[in-house]
C-alpha cells in the first residue's frame, strides 16, 4: 500500500490525541481545519481508517494502530530534536513535525533504540510503545540509564558523561568520575550521593541526569 500523505498523518495524529487520549467523541471538521472533500480525508476514508458522522470525523478500529504509530513517531521526533539536538520551544516543535515524517521503514526503531525506548515525550505525554520497546522489555535489558533512575544502594558502571559544560565534565573526570568506573548510589535526596572507589561525591539532579550508568544486574 502506498504511504499516507503528510497531511493525512497529521489528521490521524490529532484524532488520536483528542479521541483516544482525550475524551472527545470524534473531531469537528472545523477544529481539524479540513474540508469534507479534501484529498487527505478521502485518502483516509478509502482505507477505512476514519469515517464521517455528521460534522465530525471519527477514528475507526481499523485506523487505530496507524494513528498510534503516527503519534509515536511524532513524539520520538520531539525527543530527538529537544533532547539530542537541543532545539527548544516552538522551533523544536516545528522541527519535530518535519522529522516525524522521515521516521519510517525502520528508522523509528533505530531512533527508539538509540533513545533507549523512552516512554514519554518532552511534554510528558506517553509515547506508545513499539515492537522494539516490547521486545527490549521482555529481554529485561536495562540498557544505559541516567544516575537519577537508579535506586539508593544500586550500583553500575559509568557508561558515559554527557555534561553540557566542558569544565564541569573535566572536574568530574579529574575527581575520578570516569567511564568504566564502578559507581554505587548511596542516597538520592536532597542531593545525589554516590561512591566511586573509596570516595564519595555529591551532585545535584541536573548533573546526576548527565551521568549515565550501565546498571549491574
Amino acid at each position: 500500500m502506498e504511504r499516507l500523505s503528510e497531511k493525512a498523518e497529521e489528521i490521524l495524529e490529532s484524532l488520536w490525541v483528542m479521541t483516544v487520549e482525550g475524551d472527545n467523541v470524534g473531531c469537528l471538521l472545523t477544529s481539524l481545519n479540513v474540508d469534507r472533500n479534501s484529498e487527505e480525508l478521502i485518502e483516509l476514508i478509502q482505507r477505512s481508517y476514519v469515517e464521517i458522522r455528521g460534522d465530525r470525523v471519527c477514528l475507526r478500529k481499523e485506523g487505530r494502530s496507524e494513528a498510534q504509530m503516527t503519534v509515536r513517531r511524532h513524539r520520538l521526533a520531539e525527543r530527538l530534536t529537544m533532547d539530542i539536538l537541543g532545539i527548544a520551544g516552538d522551533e523544536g516543535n516545528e522541527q519535530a513535525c518535519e522529522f516525524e515524517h522521515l521516521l519510517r521503514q525502520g528508522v523509528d526503531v533505530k531512533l527508539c533504540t538509540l533513545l533507549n525506548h523512552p516512554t514519554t515525550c518532552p511534554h510528558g505525554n506517553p509515547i506508545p510503545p513499539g515492537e522494539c520497546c516490547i521486545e527490549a522489555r521482555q529481554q529485561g535489558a536495562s540498557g544505559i540509564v541516567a544516575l537519577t533512575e537508579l535506586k539508593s544502594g544500586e550500583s553500575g558502571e559509568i557508561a558515559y558523561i554527557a555534561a553540557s559544560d566542558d569544565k564541569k565534565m573535566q572536574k568530574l573526570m579529574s575527581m575520578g568520575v570516569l567511564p568504566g568506573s564502578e559507581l554505587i548510589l548511596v542516597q538520592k535526596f536532597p542531593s545525589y550521593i554516590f561512591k566511586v572507589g573509596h570516595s564519595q561525591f555529591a551532585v545535584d539532579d541536573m548533573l546526576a541526569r548527565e551521568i549515565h550508568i550501565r546498571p549491574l544486574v
Partner: protein
Amino acid sequence: MSDLHMSSAKVVLVGNPNVGKSVVFNALTGAYTTVSNYPGTSVEVSHGHCNLSDRRYEILDTPGMYSMMPITEEERVARRILLTEDPHAVVHVIDARNIERMLPMTLQLIEAGLPVILVINILDEAERLGMQLDLNLLQENLGIPVIGAVMKRKVGLDELRQAITTYASVPYKPFVYALDLEQDIEKIIQSIHGEYRLSRRAMSLLIMQKDDDIQDLAVEKESESDYRELLETTREISFRRRADLHLQISLERRKVCKQMLDGVVTQTLAEKEPFSEKLSSWMMNPVTGAPILMLVVYFGLYKFVGGFGAGTLVDFLEGKIFENYINPPVVNFFETYLSTEWLFELIAGEYGVWTLGIRYAVALVLPIVGTFFLVFSLLEDTGYFPRLALLVDRLFKRIGLSGRAVIPIVLGFGCDTMATLVTRTLETKRERIIATMLLALAIPCSAQLGVILGLLSSSPDALFVWTVFLIMCFLLIGFLAAKVLPGESPVFYMEIPPLRFPQLRNVLVKTLTRMQSYFVEILPLFLVASVVLWAGKMTGTLQNVIGVFSPIVTAIGLPVEVTTAFVFGFFRRDFGAAGLYDLQSSGVLNVAQLTVAAVTLTLFVPCVAQFLVMLKERGVKVSVIIFVFVTVLAFSSGWFLNKFLLATGFLA
C-alpha cells in the same frame, strides 16, 4: 648539586584537598608557620621552613588541586606556583585509599618534568579497608621516590626528610599514550620554541586542551610568528578532537595508572563500617541531618559563641581586665598629657580611637569573633560543611545559590566582611552577587548577633519575631533575586571527604589565621571609622546626618533617639546594636519598638568595612545598587513590621 646553596631550596607540597597535606606541612616545618593570602586572591598559601642536614628548605603548602589543568581559583593558584617557582622537590601527597584516582596527577607532575616525591598518606585507614600496597614495586614502576606514611602519627616522616635531602633529579621515563594521541603531542611539541618551567610534553598537552593561562604564557614566550604557527597546529588538532579530547586523555592516563598499579594493590575484605561512616550518613540524611544541624547551632553558636564568647569572655575582658586594670591608667595617662580637648576626644573620648577602636575591638569583638572562628575551623576540619552543603543545596537553588554557598553564608555569622571576600570561591558572577547581597542584608555578624541576642533575650516573643522575619527576608529576597538576575542557575558538585576527628593544630592554625586577618584587615577600618565619627561630632556633621535620618526613623514608629544608633550602625554593625542597648536600658523603647529597631538595624546597610570590601570585590555599580536597595528595604520592612505589630497587637 655539589655547591652549598646559601639561599634556601624550595619544597612544594601539592595534592587533592583532604589528603593530609597540611599535616605533612606541619610535621616538616614544626612551629614556624606563616599563612598568607596568595597575591591578588583570597586563597591561602602557607610558608614555613625546616633545616635538614645543615641545609635550609622553604616549604610551601599549596591549595588543593585535582589535576594540572586548573578549574577553580584555588587550583589556579596552586598551579601558578608550579609554573613560577623553581622547586628543589615537589612532594605529591595522596590518600592511599584513593590511590587509583589520585595517581593520574602524579603522572602529570612527572610528565611535566618536575622533581616529584610521592607520599602515600593515610596508609592505616587503607589497611583498615583491607588494602595492601606494595610500594617498592610502585617506586620501581614510576621511577620516583615513593614513601608510605601515616603523617598524623609521623610515620614516614624520616623517610620523607631523607628523600628531600638526597633528592637527585633523574630524567623521567615517559609514559606512552595511544599512538594517535602521541602523534598530536609530538606535532605541538615541534611548534613550541620558548623556554618553560614545565616540560614541552606537558605544555603540549595543556595547550591541546586549551588551557587559558598556558596560552597566555605562550603568547609571552613565543615569537609572534612561532605563536601563530603553534595556534594553527593546535586549532587543527583541537577541532579534530573536539568530541572527546579531555576524556581520551583522562582514560589514557588511567590506563597508564592501571599498569603502574598492577600488582601494587591487593584488596581483601574490609572490616565492618566504622562509626564515622554511620555518623556521616546521619549528617547527610535530611531526617537526621536537620536535628544535627540544630545541635551544632545550639551548642556551637548559641552556647559557645553566644554564652561563653559573648558572655563569659566579654565580661571578663571588658568588665574585669579593661575596666579595672587597663582603662583607668590609659585614660589617666591621656588626661595628664593631652591637655587639648579635641586631641583628648580623638584618642580617649566617647568616639576616640582608643575607646571605640582598640578597646572595643579587643575586649568586645575579639572574644566573640575568636570563639566563632574556633567553632568554624573545628567544623571545617571535621568535614561537616560539605555535608551541610549537600543538605541545603535544594533550598539554596531556590534562592539562586548552590550548596557551596553555605560556607560564605555561615562564615557571615562570624564576620560579614570576611564572608564577602570568600564569595570569590563561588563559581558564577550571579551567585557571587546574590551571596554578597544576602550577606549585606540578612546575615548579622557575630558581634551584632551577640548584642541583639542580649537585647531581645528578655522577651522570647520579640526574639521569635526577629528570627522569623529575618529568615523570611533572606529566603524571599533570595528567591526574587534568583528570578530577576539573568544567568543560569548554578550546578552543584562536591567531593565529600571522610569525616575525621579534628586535628588540634590544624584548628588552632586556621583560627589564628582568621583572627589575624580580621585584625590586620578590619581593625584599621574600625580606627578610620572612629576618626570619622570623632570628626563628625566635632564639626557637627554627625548632628546633621542624624537630622536627615530622623524623619524616616520616626516614620517607622521609633523614637528620634534611635537615629544615632542607625547612623553608628553603618560604621560598625554591632555598635548600632549597642546603641539600642543603651536606649532600652534607659527605658526609651518598648518591646515592639525594640523589635522593629532590631530588625531594621539587622537588615540595614553593612558596616563600612564590609561596604569597602564589596566595592573592591563587586565593583562600584553593583555595590551602590546593593547599598541603596538594602537601605530602602530595611526601612520599608521596619515600617511594615511596625504596622503589623500595631495592627495585631502582638508584642504590645
